[in-house]
């Protein structure tokens, strides 16, 4: 990290609109940064401090993006730690929580050490998740203890569902004993087999194999039963359908240690955006109906859904320039997460502090990280942005090695002006 210098410098960020997700406030103020941490709020500029005038723009805790796929090991041509880090910095993401669904999967302490070493090339912080089962095959649990010692922040098989409930219940029981956080992908694997879209008028019209949205509820229900059985700490990577929400709400009301996330794409796009078989809109799970999207936006506003992330999934041109059914799934999102989230601000669905609660504070809290807040003593991981700055996205300007964004050519509002990690500026003028 190039932050050594920055950490020694005393910075005073003045004339800012402080977006505080913890206090849920959005008001003018200033931040004093010393030794890479937030030293004080709203104080006069001390002697010798470098003053940065924020020009009345928004200053918020840097985004903690949970569920980013980096192509290392195995697919470095799609994304390296360096390109992902540059992309993150440009998008106001200061902490990446990387996925273990690489090739090979991050399922041993050795591969975890490898990626940890490689991640040093990134200008932003990177934490790693590890696979829950060896090779993400759903047959044997990984060395959860060793992996925790090596720094794994959570355990996930990505979008592979562990079908064998005996294997899963043992893994969850074992994880429980170590206090490990497990992440599940709520989806019934049988019902969703071969699906590339969500059942309904659109998929029927386009003739795309589709899955009933109930498959998500079924996956959720099964996992909730296992959570009740084992008492494990659990996070659902993506809840995207209205029908799954009551079950999640009940589980939370019953005191289960569960949280849930959703990708920004499922909050801002719906199945009709696929249009004429546009493969950049092919995601896992598939885009849902507008009713689902609205219900999920409401669930984020009410706090039922805890985390919003990019689910950044880089894919090269070759894996997307195929007929829809055959094309690879996923979209890049590190750089478009913030402007896409601003759509929910401009539509009046969420306030800026609410948005940074799900983008930064909640994921940091759930993973036990000190980031995600503007509190005195917290790491100075910050993003300065203009929520109103309009632009038309050109995918070739993205810093990610892969350009598969569904927002190519669309009008967006919200630009990142500067990003700091540990008090060191990693993006911006």
């Amino acid at each position, binding site marked *: 990290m190039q932050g050594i210098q920055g950490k020694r410098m005393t910075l005073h960020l003045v004339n800012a609109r402080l977006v505080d997700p913890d206090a849920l406030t959005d008001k003018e103020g200033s931040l004093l940064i010393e030794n890479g941490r937030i030293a004080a709020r709203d104080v006069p500029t001390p002697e010798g401090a470098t003053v940065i005038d924020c020009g009345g723009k928004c200053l918020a805790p840097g985004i903690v993006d949970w569920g980013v796929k980096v192509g290392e090991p195995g697919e470095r041509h799609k994304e390296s730690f360096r390109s992902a880090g540059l992309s993150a910095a440009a998008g106001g993401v200061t902490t990446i929580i990387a996925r273990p669904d690489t090739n090979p999967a991050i399922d041993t302490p050795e591969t975890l050490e490898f990626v940890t070493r490689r991640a040093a090339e990134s200008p932003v912080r990177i934490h790693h998740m590890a696979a829950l089962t060896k090779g993400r095959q759903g047959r044997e649990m990984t060395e959860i203890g060793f992996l925790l010692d090596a720094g794994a922040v959570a355990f996930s098989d990505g979008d592979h569902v562990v079908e064998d409930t005996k294997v899963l219940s043992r893994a969850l029981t074992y994880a429980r004993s170590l206090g490990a956080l497990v992440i599940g992908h709520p989806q019934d694997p049988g019902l969703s087999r071969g699906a590339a879209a969500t*059942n309904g*008028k659109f998929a*029927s019209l*386009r*003739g795309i194999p589709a899955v009933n949205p109930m498959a998500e509820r079924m996956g959720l229900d099964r996992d909730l039963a296992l959570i009740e059985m084992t008492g494990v700490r659990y996070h659902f990577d993506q809840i995207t359908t209205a029908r799954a929400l009551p079950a999640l709400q009940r589980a939370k009301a019953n005191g289960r240690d569960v949280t849930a996330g959703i990708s920004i794409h499922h909050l801002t796009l719906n199945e009709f955006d696929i249009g004429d078989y546009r493969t950049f809109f092919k995601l896992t799970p598939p885009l849902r109906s507008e009713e689902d999207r609205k219900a999920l936006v409401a669930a984020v506003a009410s706090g039922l859904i805890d985390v919003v992330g990019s689910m950044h999934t880089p894919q090269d041109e070759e894996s997307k*320039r195929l*007929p829809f059914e*055959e094309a690879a799934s996923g979209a890049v999102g590190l750089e478009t997460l913030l402007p896409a989230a601003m759509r929910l601000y401009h539509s009046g669905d969420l306030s800026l502090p609410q948005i940074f609660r799900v983008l930064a504070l909640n994921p940091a809290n759930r993973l036990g990280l000190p980031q995600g807040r503007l509190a005195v003593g917290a790491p100075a991981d910050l993003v300065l942005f203009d929520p109103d700055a309009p632009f038309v996205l050109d995918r070739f300007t993205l810093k990610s090695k892969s350009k598969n964004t569904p927002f190519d050519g669309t009008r967006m509002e919200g630009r990142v002006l500067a990003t700091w990690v540990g008090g060191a500026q990693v993006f911006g003028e």
Partner: protein
Amino acid sequence: MAFRARHLLGIEHLTPEDIRSVLDLAEKYVDLNRRTVKQSDVLAGMTQINMFFENSTRTQASFELAGKRLGADVMNMSVAQSSVKKGETLIDTALTLNAMHPDLLVVRHPSSGAVNLLASKVNCAVLNAGDGRHEHPTQALLDALTIRRAKGRIQRLTVAICGDVAHSRVARSNLILLGKMENRVRLIAPPTLMPPGVQEFGCEIFDDMRAGLEGADVVMMLRLQKERMDGGFIPSEREYFHRYGLDAEKLSCAKPDAIVMHPGPMNRGVEIDGIIADDINRSVIQDQVEMGVAVRMACMDLLARNLRAERGAQAVGTYV
């Protein structure tokens, strides 16, 4: 002439006016095809390539014959067993062919939307000969011509489409076309073979075949597409035939003069009783094949006219 598009990818993009113009032109080709000398020169000098990524005898033969009768140079490529096996992508195959300057590309592909993708990468006219479960526009047009000739009109008819709707591109294209032409469409299928949300297209849904056939002018049977099924949509063929196979008894629920159609190839004894299929008073299945050639000639003729107009305009530096 209304139809001005570069490609024919689906019925979805056609207006009722476009559809009528195709059918009217096809009528002329029906006459031509019944003569001893069936030659026309509207495609003379043009190259037509038939690219079938999925095996087909009937449709390919129909397109080949249509092109040859219009005077085009026709080439058949069975891509199902060629370079695709060597790992070439659809787009590369398309670009390779495009470099050979064909004028008409007739494409069938097992994936929905694949023909749209291909059409976006080439600068000739592309004719969709069926893509996955999406559309099969020439089939819907030939069905419309068959109905119009048998019933004297293609409006205000009650058309029952029966069978494997879920896997059928024929059903989708027909559903759209018949809706555009203001007909009443009923879909009859076991619930496992009915695509979800399809009632939102303004058709009626039945799982009881007799109720669905009540008062129908046209009974359109679909083939049970076993090759597209990943198992377990119906308990057995004999139960399917019992409940959804068209026999004389079920057909008696439709209007006495109702015609019976099938896009072929038929599974006799699975979705249709052989006796019905062969009944010259009810079945227009052979007419459908005849209309197929004429409709494809009309479509290619229209696309070639548009192509010439576009190229002519480009040559003199104006925009169309």
